[in-house]
């Protein structure tokens, strides 16, 4: 696995070098490669497909203009995700979103094997409750939780995206999880989930 990852990094750096010289095809390859990582992160913050689409485009435009400043200390993907996280947080600040339209965000999960429609509905309810609770977390804690649980980033990658130490990553993640525990506890959803 590390070989594949380092190959990706080398390839990224080559594409970045070409894109810096104005090679739009090279930049397009980078966009194609990371579009869904960026789009997903923006979506988890905004819960809106349209906003995530626009934000993702802005992220890539910003990245293109800032390519000269990319030194390759962090991976290109984590660099992009850092821009995406900051862009999304700024967007939320501007819109002062307190609540989020879950109808837009939620895609009914497929009924898993051996799962009755009732169980699927309950799983959907739990998912929506967690989404709602996550959106109420402070920005730094929310970012940590999204990067870890939804984007599946390692602590090292999270530290690069959030521009902080591994210790801070662990602390933010801890606080995010504790807060979620407190928020979801009274709903008794977590207990129900054992059976789902």
């Amino acid at each position, binding site marked *: 696995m590390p070989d594949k990852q380092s190959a990706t990094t080398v390839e990224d750096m080559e594409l970045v070098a070409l894109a810096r010289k104005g090679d*739009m095809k090279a930049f*397009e390859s980078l*966009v*194609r490669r990371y*579009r*869904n990582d960026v*789009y*997903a992160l923006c*979506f*988890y913050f905004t819960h809106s*497909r349209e906003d*995530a*689409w626009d934000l*993702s*485009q*802005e992220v*890539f*435009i910003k990245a*293109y*203009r800032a390519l000269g400043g990319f030194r390759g200390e962090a991976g290109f993907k984590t660099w992009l995700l850092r821009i995406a996280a900051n862009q999304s947080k700024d967007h939320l600040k501007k819109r002062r979103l307190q609540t989020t339209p879950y109808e837009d965000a*939620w*895609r009914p*999960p497929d009924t898993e094997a051996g799962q009755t429609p009732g169980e699927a509905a309950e*799983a*959907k309810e*739990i*998912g*929506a*409750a*967690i*989404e709602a609770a*996550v959106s109420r977390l402070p920005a730094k804690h929310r970012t940590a*939780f999204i990067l*870890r*649980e*939804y984007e599946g980033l*390692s*602590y090292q990658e999270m530290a690069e995206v959030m521009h902080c130490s*591994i210790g801070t990553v*662990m*602390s933010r*993640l*801890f606080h995010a*999880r*504790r807060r*979620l*525990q407190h928020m*979801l506890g009274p709903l008794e*959803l*977590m207990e129900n*989930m*054992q059976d789902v």
Partner: protein
Amino acid sequence: MFKRKKMMRIGARLDGETRYSGREIPETHDEKLKQYESALLLQRRGAARAARAPEISDTQFDAFMQGIREGVAEPAPRFAGLWTVASVATVTLIVIISLLAFFTGGPDPVRATEVESASTELQGVTVNYYDNPQGVSTVKVNMPENDLW
């Protein structure tokens, strides 16, 4: 604090970050830690159900990329220049106000007026006052020597 560190290590272990989870946490009888671990596992299962982000499909990609191309072609907003102008204007304003305050001298200094009268209701205490030739007023309070104060 000690428990918090243990909880963070449990989190790291469940996240597959063995490098940061430290030594394997021994079997604990601490109910709170056990509850925390099972709550984390449940939370993860819940998050897995919530995490269904849409994707930009290959058929949508051209439209997506077109927006980026158009954005790149537009001139970048020059916020840096705007900030420079705003900073220079603020500094200039501060300097002008400072110079005005310095050269106009500000308000007249407060002066003590002469004492018109002085009295006390304390028994055995006397109050006198006098003005010296320079116009400074002095009030003198005399207390009896056997006073407990």
